[in-house]
């Protein structure tokens, strides 16, 4: 059933007339043309679709519009501010925290929520926090290094 769904995406209002049992992933990718958020498994196992709702990292493939009514959503496209990359984005580039790049959006968004909850995590805490996110290329150690650098402000070096 179509209802009015309103929320904010990357600081801008979204106002949709649609079924509120639809999943956020497909609304982002189709209605809002934000394709940086990826489909990986559709069941919340892989984390490629991770976005932030408020300060929480959520799996957009398992999140319905009903759950985000009135809330603030940040996707990978919304992380850079006024053309300046987020420290995590710079750190992922500096430390080679990606290979194919397909899990990267979800990794960065998960790491972003992690750092909000714990600004200076140990490498072990980073690995623990990112454990539910899958990367098949094997960039894990560099991802941990990137998140650590971003937390310490060292990720800005280039």
């Amino acid at each position, binding site marked *: 059933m179509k209802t009015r769904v309103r929320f904010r995406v990357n600081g801008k209002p979204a106002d949709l007339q649609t079924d509120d049992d639809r999943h956020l992933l497909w609304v982002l990718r189709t209605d809002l043309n934000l394709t940086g958020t990826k489909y990986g498994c559709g069941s919340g*196992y892989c984390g490629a679709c991770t976005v932030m709702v408020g300060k929480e990292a959520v799996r957009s493939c398992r999140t319905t519009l009903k759950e985000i009514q009135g809330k603030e959503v940040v996707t990978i496209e919304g992380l850079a501010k006024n053309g300046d990359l987020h420290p995590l984005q710079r750190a992922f580039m500096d430390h080679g925290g990606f290979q194919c790049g*397909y899990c990267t959006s979800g990794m960065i968004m998960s790491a972003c929520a992690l750092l909000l909850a714990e600004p200076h995590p140990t490498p072990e805490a980073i690995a623990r926090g990112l*454990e539910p996110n899958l990367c098949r290329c094997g960039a894990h150690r560099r991802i941990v290094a990137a998140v650590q650098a971003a937390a310490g402000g060292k990720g800005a070096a280039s």
Partner: protein
Amino acid sequence: MSDFEGIDRRRFFQLTGGGIAVFISLGPWELFGQQRAPSYPEDINAYLLIGADGRVKIFSGKIEMGQGVMTSQAQMAAEELGVAVESIDMVLGDTERCPWDMGTFGSMTTRFFGPALRAAAAEARQVLEKLAAEKLGVDPGRLVVEKGVVSVAGDAARKVTYGELAQGKRIARLVDRKAVMRAASQFEVMGKSPRRIDGLEKVTGRARYAADVRPPGMLYARVVRPPAHGAKLAALDVSAAEKTSGVTVVNQDGLVAVLHPDPEGAEKALNLVKSRWDLPSSALDPETIFDHIVKTEGTSEVRQTKGDVAAGRAAAARVFETTYRKGYVAHAPIEPHAAVAEFKDGKMTVWASTQTPFPTRDRIAGALKLEPARVRVVTPFLGGGFGGKSADLQAIEAARLAQITGKPVQVAWTRQEEFFYDRFDPAAVVEIVSGLDDKGKVVLWDAVVHAAGARGASLFYDIPNVRVKTHGQPSYGADSAGAMHLFSVGPWRAPGANMNAFAMESQMDLMAAAAGVDPLEFRLRHLTDPRMRRVLQAAADAFGWKSAPGPSGMGRAVACSVDAGSYDALIAQVRIDAKGGSVTVERIVCAQDMGIIVNPDGAKMQMEGSITMGLGYALAEELRFRGGDILDRNFGTYSIPRFSWVPSIETVLVQNNDLAPQGGGEPAIVATGAALANAVFDATGARIARLPMTPERLREGIAAAKSRRSAAG
């Protein structure tokens, strides 16, 4: 060098807007005396174009799937051309704009395509230097080139840029002879690790993958799938789907699909389709498949032979017979297969996640009965490939549906479809009979490989009597199931080599222990190849190897491999929870000799990635199936390596600038399984002859080792 007649130059420059183009048509095997790769490009290998804006476009049929070749190719061209990496734009995997290429696999981009690209760039530099000499009125020998600026030596004010030289030019050159390339000692761009040029797009979400392509009016398609491989459609009812508004149903020549303007609409429509299937009866499962594989007739071929195995058996004081096994393993890239097809003005354009854009174009043309010239395949970034994206069923489906409906169509597989249609790394069996003489020398090696093929099966150890046979070499064709497998199998990162190395290096380790010799020392005693000796020593030094015969209880072990022209030695350190049967990998050291290194950091990333992926097939990954029914269809039951699995990984690049660049995307995964199996043995005394080493198998192995020890008294 000559003017190039092979293409319509006028049309070419209309398309490119002029500039200086250099094409190269020369087999790289001639350039470097490399072993010729079968069916490598016969026509144009590479070309590059220098535009009036000074930017250099490199056109390459290779694709970027994470391995970093967008950056390494740019580096190679920049080095020879004398420009900065930043001034290069890469055009990859577009069948209309790039030279023909058989595909991106086999760690061949740098080995085989690299020399052609470097030759084209070296030739372009000569053309530019000649033009600059004319313009500046000096002898070419007096010129220096730096970052695309040509100046007179000692008189830097007299200069001209590549862009200025290319201004208004329409020069096309064909290189058909050996070009002089820069030596490793001259390198300014190669041998360094600039930041990857795909980084910015990938960290901002702007990087485009096949499913991100959205031509206006595109429909999302879902295809009706059988419940199991080999199932035959017995009844179909699409009436409910047809009655749903916005849904298009296609049912043509075995392709049944529902299409809708949004992906959820397509999924709902799919759920309305009723189908009944006749299922084949097969009792095969992950336990019974091995006997089936061994029994299945296949082509048999002797791959390596030396001395006389009968004489070896006679000379052996002790003979060791082991059968090694490994189940099916999925590629499981995080990006499932996707394609978008658009049929416009009699021409089919398909954006596809494929490792083989040109063969895919030909397969699409065949399926649609179109001339290949009327099909264009464009390859955006791939979200991982690992050998798994080279069959292109999804691209053919999208193209057929676009042709039938007349609308742009996206076919993006679900994770379930991705698992179902994966062309798995085959289950395989390797039987080895080997023997030691009374001095602890290996005098016999008689191996039969079932289903894993020849890659990595040949011995690099010096053993006098050797025979290596393969049965049922997997044909990695479109339908490769054959009689041996119930579903398709295909190339999986270093195809077959992982299994062959597991068997070979386990058997060597087992004999080292039987001889009471330290496993590293045992290998060195059987090795004369200087490259292998060097990597072994480098790995041992970096690890801090302590000599002791196995099982030492230390939980450390070594394994070696030769793959894609590169040599690797891995040392793994594990900790075992004997009660639970779990393996914790604490540390892996890998030394690799890959010839000249184009990008050291990129090479290390590939080594780390290979080793991490290798943890999966060694410890956990084994597809569950019942007959043709694939039981693992998502990551909930099929585990791939996670953050907590990843040990400390130290990579050592052993310098070898006398050798042209060799493969880097696969070699380090090859010995990973063997190194871990040997480390488990060193820790526990249990020789696990089947991968993956699940907790159950480990507990059984430990119990068996214990009872052997107590029986021995």
